[in-house]
């Protein structure tokens, strides 16, 4: 086949790719607008109860109002800080626990049933106990955000520590490496992709922990806004909070994904 023909085919291929991408984008936007337009319309036409289901325009107005009086920023800031801290603490503690278990196979066998129990336990059920122990403040909410992800992180990361090819350790042992050196040079870097992907799961989990924590503590934050809106029957406020949570949870997830891409890239 001659050069010109190949080039032409390539052009056609690229064109097809572009048009496909366009199609996907159009449908995505279509769903978005249909959903919000439908919501607005059914609320105005009273097909759904506007008191319960509010409407996009009301949520939007409330968003502007709450942004202007500064109360949204305060609540959002509190929730974000709690989530980020809970997320970091949960991941760090989980990874460190996994390292301890790897260090001592005996300890890991002893603790195995307890890990299984703790993992199957719904962590949010511990909420009241945490509040009693740590007080009705940010600390107990952060603890909720952390505790919800720590056990699953431990289990996932420990499993990946164990699955590192033993021959890498053999190489290190022939150089006379200590267990610390084996961990630092082989176990930890080999498990890096797993740790990063557990970060992605933990972002979502931390949001759950923090929102539930705020339901219980009920003083500040987006979770508080939801529970308050529910109690005074202001569902516009509930929807506003949900909207803000959706936006920021997605942003956090995207950030972690960006981090993943960067780290994995430097890994190759």
């Amino acid at each position: 086949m001659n050069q010109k023909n190949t080039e032409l085919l390539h052009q056609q291929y690229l064109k097809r790719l572009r048009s496909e991408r366009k199609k996907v984008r159009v449908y995505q936007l279509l769903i978005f607008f249909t959903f919000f337009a439908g919501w607005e319309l059914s609320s105005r036409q009273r097909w759904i109860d506007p008191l319960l289901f509010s409407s996009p325009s009301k949520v939007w107005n409330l968003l502007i109002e709450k942004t202007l009086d500064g109360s949204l920023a305060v609540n959002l800031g509190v929730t974000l800080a709690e989530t980020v801290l809970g997320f970091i603490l949960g991941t760090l503690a989980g990874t460190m626990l996994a390292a301890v278990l790897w260090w001592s196979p005996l300890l890991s066998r002893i603790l195995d049933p307890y890990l299984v129990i703790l993992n199957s336990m719904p962590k949010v059920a511990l909420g009241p106990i945490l509040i009693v122990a740590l007080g009705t403040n940010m600390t107990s909410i952060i603890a909720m955000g952390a505790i919800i992800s720590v056990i699953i992180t431990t289990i996932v990361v420990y499993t990946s520590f164990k699955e590192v090819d033993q021959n890498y350790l053999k190489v290190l042992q022939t150089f006379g490496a200590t267990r610390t050196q084996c961990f630092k040079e082989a176990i930890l870097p080999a498990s890096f992709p797993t740790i990063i992907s557990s970060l992605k799961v933990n972002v979502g989990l931390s949001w759950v922990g923090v929102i539930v924590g705020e339901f219980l503590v009920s003083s500040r934050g987006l979770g508080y806004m939801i529970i308050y809106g529910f109690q005074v029957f202001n569902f516009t406020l509930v929807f506003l909070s949900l909207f803000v949570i959706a936006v920021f949870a997605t942003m956090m997830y995207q950030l972690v994904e960006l981090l993943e891409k960067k780290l994995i890239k430097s890994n190759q």
Partner: protein
Amino acid sequence: MDFLTLTGIHHTYFTKTSAVTALNDISLDVREGEFVSFLGPSGCGKTTLLSIIAGLIDPSDGQVKLEGKTVKQASNQTGYMLQQDYLFPWKTIEENILLGLKISGTLNAQKKEEVLALLEQMGLENVGKLYPKQLSGGMRQRVALVRTLATEPKLLMLDEPFSALDYLTKLKLENLVSNTLKTFEKTAILVTHDIGEAIAMSDRIFLLSPRPGRLHQVFLIPEELRNISPFEVRNHPLYNELFQSIWKELEYLEPEEY
């Protein structure tokens, strides 16, 4: 005094349901600068024996002495090359080859220079900053050889290091490894199930019998084959003769194969 001495090595693996004897009463000596091969069918405990010599496993009975010392005391005197290169994919080639020195805490500017120079001698230039993934199988195995040699081990153990490579690369690497080890006057033990490779590279071949592994016979490679490169050995008239006699012994050890 011999360089490496094995006396009465026994090794048994225990599981919940069984005790499998992998090695039974193996005694042998290796002289300094010698290249020996452990040849045998699968299940003869070749790799176990190598791990015992390297001090990675303690034998159930018997002892290994390297220059009169037990291998535990003589750590860092042995280098080990595996079937696959096992270069760390997240480290650059340079970091990989300096790993041994880093771990033993003996890395300095001069040593680094020497190791990098060795890499160039192996025909690998300007690869220091690359990652293992970017190199071919043969290049990676050469890097693994440099990594093994970097700590200047007195005894090198090669556990089927060419088995994962294509035939042409394997022949080239046999020559390179053989030359390099001769130049540095290293003692080496090669584990293989490839008769040709054993003849081409060694000074002596220990034939092991399977289940449990024991020393069956020792073949001495004639002087004329020892001083030529592995590739030339394969073309030498004596090569075929030797191949046939080892082949017969292997057939005798495991006639029920196929």
